[in-house]
């Protein structure tokens, strides 16, 4: 059985009368790249806030590396690196910003310098000298990722890491996530609006809608759902009819698995995130 690194059980949260989470159950296992999917306001970020201890839950429990008590949760959160927005000082450079977090995390002297060099190299920001306030959105996201992987955390949480990135930037982030998972053994939770992108990144998916994780699925589940038959013709039904009437058999069909996007909209309804 897979080892659960993060587990939420019946987690509820309301702001006044507005219920944001209505009993979330989800489990992220060691080694997963877990994609969290949901439209704006579905509750994805609130789930992250619960895991990171930034918000108090009204009900339920959060477990990190098997612990649910407050003292151990604090300790185990040290095993999490996360990217949630850009939490940097505008007047400091990438290196200086990371130095602040590295020292706060307990790195000193040469070790701190080596660790900062390592993560800056991974995100290709090693030679950037200007202060953070002058960074493009892509550079800000890359620095956010560098900060998240500082100290090689066991678990990596990335909230919308491809937001505002160009196609090359998106591909870079995807490659980084795979590298962190495969090479460094990090368990990754990533949220995104871009379902097609997430489909190519994650192994497991949690679909959040109106404050509940309505379904958790794997890549294999997507393959097992109703196949889509693609025929290279403009009008499939008419084409089949015509072919049948003419006594012509279809000898080749290309079967594709259901896309994550199709699966999601079939489950939730609607057509746009």
């Amino acid at each position: 059985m897979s080892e659960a690194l993060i587990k939420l059980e019946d987690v509820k949260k309301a702001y006044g009368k507005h219920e944001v989470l209505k009993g979330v159950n989800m489990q992220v296992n060691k080694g997963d790249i877990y994609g969290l999917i949901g439209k704006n306001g579905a509750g994805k970020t609130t789930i992250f806030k619960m895991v990171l201890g930034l918000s108090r839950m009204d009900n339920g429990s959060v477990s990190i590396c098997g612990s649910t008590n407050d003292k151990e949760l604090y300790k185990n959160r040290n095993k999490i690196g996360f990217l949630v927005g850009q939490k940097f000082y505008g007047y400091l450079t990438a290196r200086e910003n990371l130095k602040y977090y590295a020292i706060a995390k307990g790195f000193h002297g040469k070790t701190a310098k080596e660790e900062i060099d390592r993560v800056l190299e991974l995100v290709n920001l090693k030679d950037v000298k200007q202060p953070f306030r002058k960074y493009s959105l892509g550079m800000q996201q890359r620095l956010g990722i560098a900060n998240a992987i500082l100290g090689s955390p066991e678990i990596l949480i990335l909230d919308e890491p491809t937001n505002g990135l160009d196609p090359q930037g998106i591909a870079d982030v995807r490659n980084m996530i795979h590298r962190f998972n495969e090479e460094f053994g990090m368990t990754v939770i990533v949220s995104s609006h871009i379902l097609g992108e997430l489909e190519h990144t994650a192994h497991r998916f949690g679909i959040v809608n109106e404050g509940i994780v309505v379904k958790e699925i794997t890549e294999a589940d997507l393959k097992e759902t109703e196949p889509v038959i693609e025929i290279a013709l403009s009008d499939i039904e008419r084409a089949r009819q015509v072919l049948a009437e003419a006594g012509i058999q279809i000898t080749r069909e290309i079967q594709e698995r259901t896309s994550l996007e199709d699966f999601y909209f079939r489950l939730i309804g609607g057509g746009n995130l």
Partner: protein
Amino acid sequence: MINLIRADLRRVLRRPTLYIFAGLMLLFAILGGLSSDAMEMMNIEKNDTAYLVAIMASVPILITLYGDDFRSGSMITVIGRGVSRTKLLVAKLITSSILLFGFYVLAFIEFYVFHTFLLNAYYSPKQTALTVLMIFLGWFRNVALFAFASILMYALWNVAAGIVTILGLIAFLRILLMAVNKEGTIYYLTTDGMIDKGYSAVMTGNFPYQFIIVVVYVTAFIVIGSLFFKRKELDL
């Protein structure tokens, strides 16, 4: 906690704001000294230097240590990585106390060097000890105000609330409370009043137990601030 303090000190000392305010503080102190009678200036009890230092130190420390954190959201990253909010609050207060101490030491050096070498004044050992005591009490008073102001800053998540509170308390607390209560019974219940009483106790050769009460006040402010901070919903 030491790591947090080190990280914050290193970061804040890179901000020019601190040095600009420190420079202005020295400039105002020297200009004030040049325009006053030397003997009057040497009387630390009648000197306004402590007020000047309190104002010129509090503003840049609040802006750089707390304001930058509220604005950048760096506290959120630190908390999300498993640092408790109480620990963070205490670490910030210790860091601000260290920075305040720096300002007060600078003021002492200016006060002493300026009068001894530039005005050719002679400080007896007793006068030197009194000056050191007054500088220390100014710092102690300021730390207590920071602890009180941190309650409002964490409750409102706003550094302006802290700046207004501290400046208001430095400038008006004594005047206002003495105006409404001439006997000073209310004023002497405040941290400022306690420190004044403690100073009188020292000068009359009594044990200044009031300083212990101020430490209890500061601890209570930390506990209350921590309760507000723990209830605070942090937005990503």
